[in-house]
């Protein structure tokens, strides 16, 4: 029904989509999987006639039921597209918050679809149809949702509204561009189920774009893998996942964190050796523990600094108690809002609104942040960034003073250790990719040999293949430098790969804590089981 033939799209002379061939049959769900920069979104937008004006079709064409909608060399036929957009093809975008007009009531925005394409309905009939569609996508309080503004609804509800908007006219094709990426795991699954249900009922063809292989596997009939603008491989879901042919496809599948087997940790020995070493050193009683947290309550004060802010204190973490041993990785899992970040800020002393005790047995613990784009100072060079922690340390601890040359050498050394060449020393963060920036982030955190590091979602913002590399880097550095990690993530599979023990948090409380294998095979709490099931 949909044919994309030999499509190439270029921006400013550079091709981002190269000779792409895709077909979607009536009622079929085609998944397009790829990492960032693979060209999947541009392909979809070109299909829909929504790609920006600067894009140039350098080859190929797009057909809908054998009607040519777009062709290389011919300027976009907007009038033709308008007869298709909305009524015969619709799109669901990634960010429902910004994809809906923030100043308009949601019901009216969906109703606009009807106003644009049907003439026979009265306003009451239109509203009724919208309410009906809301109910069918799982929005139970349809009347209230109709009158709401986007910011008054939750992320999941907003996405359902977008889906309602997309299906209300029963289009032959629905394109979904990463529709679940911005949502919590539990909501993600609901949305996927909803899409499947719609496909069954309305028999529309669907183009499902994602970077998450697992989702594609669950929802789609056929899958195409894209990389650097080309389709690397395509086939049915079974073909791709069980017998992938191309090397990249295999790599992609392998890089996804799963629970199949784990790299055995050599570190177990080190701990006891450490104990032995401690006796030998004898200077200070070197504790087996690197961190002890007892009865910790963390508060969050709303309203910021101003005089007028209410003294409302919200309890975001309650009665947290746990200890961490030297050299181990403790994983912390939970959904967004459960208090993981608040807990880490309290442990490091960033948030002082606490009750209870936090005892460190390491000096100057550090943190690795989630967003590689905001964790490096954009106005400084990489070399400066790597040296700054050392400079700061000198101020705090005069005994650690270094000469300029030594400091530079240490920075270069760390640069190599995180896997980057000399030439990056003088570059700025804007010139590095996300994965490279995260490596520098790690380097910055570790250059002072902190002993204890909190890693807050360090790989969540990265492509799957890069994720695997960074996780490997962290593991090897941990071994080399005998570090202890508190590894936070919402993705339980990632945590599984990295941790010795796991802590599960929910609504500010530690719900379960135990060895990784134990938790995965024999979860004690219902919530833990739920989390495991959903992934």
């Amino acid at each position, binding site marked *: 029904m949909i044919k994309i033939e030999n499509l190439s799209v270029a921006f400013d002379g550079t091709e981002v989509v190269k000779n792409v061939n895709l077909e979607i049959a009536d009622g079929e769900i085609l998944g397009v999987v790829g990492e960032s920069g693979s060209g999947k979104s541009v392909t979809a937008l070109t299909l829909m006639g929504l790609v920006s004006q600067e894009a140039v079709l350098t080859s190929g064409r797009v057909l809908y039921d054998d009607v040519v909608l777009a062709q290389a060399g011919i300027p976009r036929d907007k009038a033709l597209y308008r007869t298709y957009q909305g009524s015969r093809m619709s799109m669901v975008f990634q960010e429902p918050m910004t994809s809906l007009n923030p100043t308009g009531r949601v019901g009216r925005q969906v109703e606009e679809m009807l106003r644009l394409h049907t003439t026979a309905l009265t306003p009451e009939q239109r509203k009724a149809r919208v309410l009906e569609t809301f109910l069918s996508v799982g929005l139970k309080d349809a009347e209230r949702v109709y009158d709401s503004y986007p910011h008054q609804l939750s992320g999941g509800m907003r996405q359902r509204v977008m889906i309602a908007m997309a299906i209300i006219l029963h289009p032959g094709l629905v394109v979904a561009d990463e529709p679940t990426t911005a949502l919590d795991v539990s909501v993600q699954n609901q949305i996927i189920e909803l899409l499947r249900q719609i496909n069954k009922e309305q028999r529309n063809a669907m183009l499902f774009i994602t970077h998450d292989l697992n989702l594609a596997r669950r929802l789609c009939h056929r899958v195409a893998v894209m990389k650097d603008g080309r389709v690397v491989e395509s086939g049915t879901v079974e073909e791709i996942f069980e017998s992938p042919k191309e090397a990249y496809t295999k790599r992609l599948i392998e890089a996804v964190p799963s629970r199949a087997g784990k790299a055995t940790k050599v570190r177990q020995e080190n701990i006891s050796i450490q104990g032995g070493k401690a006796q030998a050193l004898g200077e200070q009683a070197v504790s087996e523990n690197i961190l002890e947290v007892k009865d910790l309550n963390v508060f969050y004060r709303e309203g*910021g*600094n*101003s*005089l007028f802010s209410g003294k409302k204190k919200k309890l975001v973490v309650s009665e947290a108690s746990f200890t961490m041993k030297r050299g181990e990785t403790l994983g912390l899992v939970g959904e967004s809002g459960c208090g993981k970040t608040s807990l880490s800020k309290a442990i*490091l002393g*960033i948030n002082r609104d606490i009750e209870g005790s936090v005892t460190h047995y390491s000096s*100057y*613990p*550090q*943190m690795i*942040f989630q*967003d590689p784009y*905001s*964790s*490096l*100072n*954009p*106005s*400084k060079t990489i*070399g400066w960034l790597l040296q*700054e*922690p050392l*400079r*700061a*340390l000198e*101020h*705090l601890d005069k005994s650690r003073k270094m000469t300029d040359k030594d400091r*530079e*050498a240490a920075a*270069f050394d760390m640069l190599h250790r995180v896997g980057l060449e*000399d030439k990056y*020393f*003088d570059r700025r963060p804007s010139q590095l990719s996300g994965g490279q920036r995260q490596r520098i982030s790690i380097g*910055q*955190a570790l250059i*002072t040999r902190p002993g204890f590091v909190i890693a807050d979602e360090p790989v969540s913002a990265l492509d799957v293949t890069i994720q695997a590399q960074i996780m490997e880097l962290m593991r090897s550095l941990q071994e080399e430098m005998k570090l202890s990690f508190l590894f936070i993530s919402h993705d339980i599979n990632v945590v599984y790969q990295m941790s010795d023990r796991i802590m599960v948090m929910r609504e500010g409380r530690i719900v379960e804590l135990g060895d990784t294998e134990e938790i995965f095979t024999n979860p004690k709490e219902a919530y833990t089981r739920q989390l495991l099931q959903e992934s």
Partner: protein
Amino acid sequence: MMRKVKLPNIQKWNKYFTAGLIMTSVALFLAILGLFWTPYSTTAMSAAERFQAPSLMHPFGTDNFGRDIFSRVMKGMGTTIFISTLVVVCSGGAGILIGALTGYFGGIIDEVVMRITDAVNGFPSILLALVVISLMGSGRQNLIISLAIVFTPSFVRIVRSEFIRLRDADYIMRARLMGVGRVRILFVHILPNIFSTFWVSVMIGFNNAILAESGMSYLGIGVLPPDASLGKMLSDAQGYLMTAPWYALAPGLAIVWLVLGFSLLSEGMRRNP
């Protein structure tokens, strides 16, 4: 491990930048030249030469005292540029200091500063400067001081909001974790990142200073004679609009040239990748 020192990239030249650069350079050149030499004396009066229309000898004509207008415009531009630069340097500097401290640390002082800047925000600068002058008296020095006082709040506003924005950025949190001292965080970590925004407001401030200074001189409360000023020339010229319109045209166009040139220059700089 030899490290090469990187030279700053020469910006991509575009039409705005070139046009602006030319205009500003011409103005600067004439202004600086005017400090030492003008084609004719700006003070010697000659009844015979009164009200001559623009000619080769006098490109802008002569005024009611027979003085060459072009020379007086040169001197006037010098005064205006000098005053505006000083105003911007002082208020910009004060703005950075106050804005950085209040934005980063907050607290009661921040509240007070915020109230003051909010209250002062809507006032046209001339009005405020008027008030200050009325208490201090006129003259070049007082003019600079009053305008600097008047312009500081808007710089504080901008710097403060940038510091508030960046205070909670991940990389600043990390700097705190590393143990970097507060002063260093303010001026080494955060400050370089607000530079582009700040620079834009400096340019706008400079233009506003030029307009404010000439406006006040026009009203008679700006610089006093013998200081030349474009604004004062305009007010003198107004009376002779019917007989010698070029007298008013010259200083007015000079102001427009200066402000427009600078605007184009900053627009050109802004458009650079």
